[in-house]
């Protein structure tokens, strides 16, 4: 990848392949970067995101781990204290929780507890979200647990270009990053510009300009919002789509600029609505733009139920129709 990177300035890759290339570049750039997780070695991870990395960098830098999530995150903390930059793969969103104490109570707090003396440049990556027809515990959107925890950075790429660059920026970050990989988008292709990231890790991006209403989304829902905006355009509606990219910290500048222009906002996410990230965004927009917005900030989210059996997920997850209904409602005020 690095040889070709200097030769060509762009490449068409799937999101999974872009992550793989990004991880490879990060490991090449800094030999303190280590990867570990369940099945990430010869198998290349269950989604093959780490394919070929162990062959390239050896079993000392790409470690297959015992089946123990608390152990994975906890030892990454210790490795980081010794100057390494561990990138930990947890296998699925639903299997993050055995490592939850280590993430929220340990990893997130050491900088603050040590009064800034100990920083932990650890990346915890995992596939998240639904839409792939999987069984229980394989489709959860659990970003709110982490965004509620001060000390963690939480980001999610929605396209291959961002996947390639954001993972490298996450690895370079001096603080722990929860890196949410939209698993239903792993196989979608896009152009990756290999010469420049385009934007910083914590910047939001207007991915489709529009005039009447702003859709705010990240990860898997960005594609769905873009699709909704296309349908809305056919119906004569001008919808702007903002890819939030970084959930913590939030780039409120870009978000408020967009909503300030359109005067209407709808947050779209897969996670259950109650106490979800949509609530945070709605509250901040309302606080800042109370006299500007022309309708309440709406939310289109997963329902307040456990994730359903996969035969129902297409109806349960926010889709184009629900987003368009919300657009109509917002414009109807």
């Amino acid at each position, binding site marked *: 990848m690095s040889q070709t990177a200097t030769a060509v300035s762009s490449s068409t890759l799937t999101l999974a392949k872009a992550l793989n290339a990004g991880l490879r570049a990060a490991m090449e750039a800094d030999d303190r970067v280590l990867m570990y997780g369940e099945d990430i070695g010869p198998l290349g991870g269950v989604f093959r995101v780490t394919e070929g990395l162990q062959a390239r960098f050896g079993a000392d830098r790409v470690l297959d*781990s015992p089946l123990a999530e608390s152990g994975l995150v906890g030892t990454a903390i210790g490795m980081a204290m010794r100057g390494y930059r561990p990138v930990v793969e947890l296998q699925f969103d639903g299997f993050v929780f055995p490592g939850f104490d280590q993430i929220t109570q340990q990893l997130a707090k050491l900088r603050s507890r040590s009064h800034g003396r100990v920083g932990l440049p650890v990346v915890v990556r995992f596939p998240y979200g639904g839409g792939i027809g999987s069984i229980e515990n394989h489709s959860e959107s659990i970003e709110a647990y982490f965004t509620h925890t001060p000390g963690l950075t939480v980001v999610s790429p929605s396209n291959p270009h961002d996947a390639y660059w954001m993972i490298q920026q996450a690895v370079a970050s001096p603080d722990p990053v929860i890196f949410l990989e939209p698993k239903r988008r792993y196989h979608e292709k896009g152009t990756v510009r290999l010469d420049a990231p385009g934007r910083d890790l914590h910047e939001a991006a207007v991915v489709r300009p529009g005039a009447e209403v702003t859709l705010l989304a990240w990860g898997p829902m960005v594609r769905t919002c873009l699709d909704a905006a296309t349908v809305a355009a056919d119906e004569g509606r001008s919808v702007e789509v903002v890819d939030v990219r970084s959930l913590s910290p939030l780039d409120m500048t870009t978000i408020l600029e967009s909503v300030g222009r359109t005067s209407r906002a709808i947050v779209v996410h897969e996670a259950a609505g109650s106490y979800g990230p949509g609530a945070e965004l709605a509250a901040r927009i309302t606080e800042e733009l109370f006299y500007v917005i022309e309708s309440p900030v709406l939310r289109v989210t997963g329902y*307040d139920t456990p994730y*359903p*059996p996969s035969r129902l997920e297409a109806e349960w997850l926010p889709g184009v129709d629900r987003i368009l209904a919300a657009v109509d409602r917002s414009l109807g005020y």
Partner: protein
Amino acid sequence: MTSSMSMGQPVGASGTAGRGRFEAPAASVTPMVQLVDPSGVRVDDPDFAPIAPPDQTAALLRDMALIRRFDTEATALQRKGQLGLWAPLLGQEAIQVGVHSVLGGTDHVFPSHREHGVGMLMGLPIERMFGIFKGCEMGDWDAEALRFHHYSMVIGAHTLHAVGYAMGMAADARREDARRTDGQRPSSEPGVSVVFHGDGAISEGDVNEAYIFAAAYQAPTVFICVNNQWAISEPVERQSRVPLYQRAWGFGIPGIRVDGNDVLAVQAVTSWALDRARTGQGPTLIEAFTYRMGAHTTSDDPTKYRSADESEGWQHRDPIARTSAWLRSVGEWDDAQQAQLDQDTEAFGAEVRAAVDRVPDPSLGQVFDRVYAGTTDLLERERAEALGRVAR
């Protein structure tokens, strides 16, 4: 070398002066309970003997053949797109049948994610199992009535539930005893919880905590660690430097390794462990030594991480072939019986294929039911919105 597996030199014998006494010499030799060897010859074990007469073993052979057929049909159904996923049990039939065959009427099973055969033998309709892998349900059968708990997809989480359940069973028995004034033992047998977990699971914190609780409270729990050598692509050596059953010793639990491809041995050892639990002697860890013949699940590709030689090496240890060879040698099995069994499994195969079509389609409205004991205004509003939309 039929009843023990060599683990190489004792660590202490490596020549490092003075260290031997601190490292467990027990790790050097790993005795494995075996009653019928891979070629079908009865072998003796110093501590265990078959618990059932040969004429009852034909039933075990039959159960193994049926669950193998269930499993191969399910794998084929996944290939045809009728199931989203399947976790094959091929090669692990003797464990599932052997354990099931000695369960008492009050024992309760906590499966991991591969005990489809145990579920079937306990009366779970096949279509309920398929419901999970077809994406139509979460496995919400009546676990109490079946005595077969819901599946656990989070590795190891259920081992704690099994221990807690056993603690509850033991507490019930103590209360019943205390209430009795006639000095008689209770009429019903006290129950045992039997929990299956994998060799990978043994690394999870939850599983280690389950051992600790089981030991601390002497819970009537039997842990069946199905050591099929692989946790997806991770070999068992990645999980443990000592034989898995010896892990138990550090928790103060007896641990024993059984040949998981020998149904008679599994039966005998499980029966012994159940007896211990029932008579108040606490938990046991049984390591059932076997091999996952197929892929981890139908989405896995084992050629990426293990050699064909390795898998082929296990072919000759097949649990079904071994049992029928032994039964033939003692005159309890013949060609006519085999022909009948082949016919029965064939018919059963058709039943399994039909079952997949019987899985009812779920409806979105169900998702809002039973989130809580009652419902909430919010859920009712969401239900109305969702159903209004779906109806349009």
